[in-house]
């Protein structure tokens, strides 16, 4: 055991987050904001105790929000994801995937944005159109799936487009990246639903939005507005829709499996957090981070433990 990890361990001993369970948290908090992947479900199966946790919180009349950085799903898709894994009692108005967050963020913070060039999937387009934002996805011509660089200089900037919006898109190609980059270079707003680099899978990784964002950042030389966790927009949107104010923050708690997104969201919005170990983070991670990033609580699972 090196000196550095010993120090880390000693720091934890002094500032160790308290271990908690759902019933204890329900005594103190009224609004529960959950991350999804690694907290409620993992890939294609529900995590143990997740359903009973949701049912319990409904019974106790607690508010719930499902805040996921995934942008490919609309609210309806989100509900369908949960029900396909066997969940019941899931309310559509509690769905806050980053598609929803981005659409609401644009509506409230950038009302002049009426038409966007979208790199993203159908669920994202649906949520944007729901708030009155038109999505375009011009198919840039290719020859045998190869972009012809001779055509680059004749790509026209569509001045009716107000912004480039980027979410996960498994149909993306080089031609579309060219056009998105040109729009960004010409000064259009550059908005990104989330920056996660990859999602873990059993046999490898699923490259996430952060990869395409990196490509566009490097290619255009511009830094985007980042809407998803750990930036505060998810909390702002939730609070606005549920009519909560700053006074309600002490009654809110964010529960997630990732320090860099979920816990940091809490730090950035001054809301308590609970780190669960059913996903990405593990107990040993606590020794590797500065004490300012420690969660308020740690949880081994969603077990209610009355």
């Amino acid at each position, binding site marked *: 055991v090196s000196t550095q990890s010993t120090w880390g361990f000693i720091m934890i001993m002094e500032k160790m987050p308290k271990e908690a369970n759902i019933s204890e948290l329900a005594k103190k908090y009224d609004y529960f904001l959950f991350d999804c992947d690694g907290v409620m479900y993992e890939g294609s199966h529900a995590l143990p105790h997740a359903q009973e946790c949701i049912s319990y919180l409904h019974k106790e009349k607690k508010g719930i929000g499902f805040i996921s950085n995934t942008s490919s799903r609309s609210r309806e898709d989100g509900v369908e994801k949960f029900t396909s894994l066997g969940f019941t009692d899931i309310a559509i108005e509690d769905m806050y995937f980053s598609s929803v967050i981005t659409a609401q963020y644009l509506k409230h913070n950038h009302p002049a944005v009426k038409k966007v060039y979208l790199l993203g999937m159908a669920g994202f387009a649906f949520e944007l159109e729901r708030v009155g934002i038109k999505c375009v996805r011009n198919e840039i011509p*290719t020859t*045998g*799936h*190869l*972009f*012809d*660089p001779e055509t*680059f*200089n004749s790509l026209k900037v569509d001045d009716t487009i107000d912004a480039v919006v980027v979410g996960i*898109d*498994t*149909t*993306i*190609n*080089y031609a579309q*990246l*060219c056009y998105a*980059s*040109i729009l960004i*270079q*010409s000064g259009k707003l550059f908005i990104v639903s989330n920056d996660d*680099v*990859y999602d873990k*899978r*059993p*046999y*490898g*990784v*699923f*490259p996430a939005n*952060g*990869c*395409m964002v*990196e*490509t*566009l950042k*490097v*290619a*255009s*030389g511009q830094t985007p507005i980042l809407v998803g966790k750990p930036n505060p927009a998810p909390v702002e949107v939730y609070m606005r829709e549920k009519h909560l104010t700053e006074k309600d923050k002490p009654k809110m708690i964010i529960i997630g499996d990732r320090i860099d997104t979920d816990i940091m969201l809490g730090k950035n919005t001054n809301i308590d957090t609970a780190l669960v170990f059913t996903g990405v983070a593990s107990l040993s991670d606590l020794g590797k981070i500065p004490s300012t990033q420690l969660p308020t609580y740690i949880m081994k699972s969603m077990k209610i433990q009355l």
Partner: protein
Amino acid sequence: YQRRVHGDIKMIKECTLPELMKSYDYFILDADGVIWEGSKEIGDASKAIKFMLDNHKQVFIATNNSHKSRVDFVKKAQTVLQIDLPSECWYTSSKTTASYIKTHYPAAKSIYVVGSMGVFEELKLQGFTNVYGFEDAAKQYNDSEFWEVDLPKKGVPDIVVVGIDLGYNYYKLSYATNCIRKGSVFIATNRDAAIKMGKYLMPGAGSLVAAIEKASDVTPVTIGKPSTFTLESIMAEKSIPLELKERMIMIGDRMETDMLFASNCGIKSCMVETGVSTKENAIAEAKIGSKLAPNYIMSKLGSFQPIQPLSLIHISEPTRPRLISYAVFCLKK
């Protein structure tokens, strides 16, 4: 003029091509922004190269462009510049990548390429037969198929090469990333962020490499400028002894690739103003003694006449405190 900058760590000498020819015998030229832009010759570039060749100088083109094959570049030089620059002169990042792999991984059985035809051709020339990925431009990503069929069926290639790829798509990103995570050696042809195409920049190899680097948590070996492999390749293949490095000069337009390449190699560099970097950029780098600063600067490759330096000798102050006043600048030639 010679510009002495405070800090005094690097001086940039303004010069002409004939002056450079007095001190150097080996001219390593960048292509884009130096000899041509797109399909147009940059003023007097062919005159400059002819002048070098007529005076028995050795000319090499070191370009990070891995899109075209050397055969294509030879043809382009004939069309655009009316000059014969045979394929032995062309050190493209795809050629250097293939040479590098042949040298360091001669036993490589399978190579996955996220890149252009140039890379496939050069690898074939080096004798590698199992080089694949070109057809994946047409592939649509399907989650279950990817994990259950594609990845297990194809196995893990020994090497993954990433360069500029006009057929880049999500499928290739995922395949390359997961192979690298499973142990494939990760090689980047170059890391130029973007390519200047008139008004706008086109995404370069560097923008694609950056995504795969992030997703795989592995930093690639980068072959093209500013890494030194290109010069090592030139010197080995042309049997140029080490001592003659002092007779070599790199002429380029982009400081973070061309000038840094020269610095890393221990050879001199000359920046031309017909491409990406500006004189102001160069002076700023020289002020802080950075490795990006060039040793020489020319307005363009075909610089035969010295620039007449002008200096400000007198400025008269406005004589009347009225709305319109005049200042007179006297410049001395």
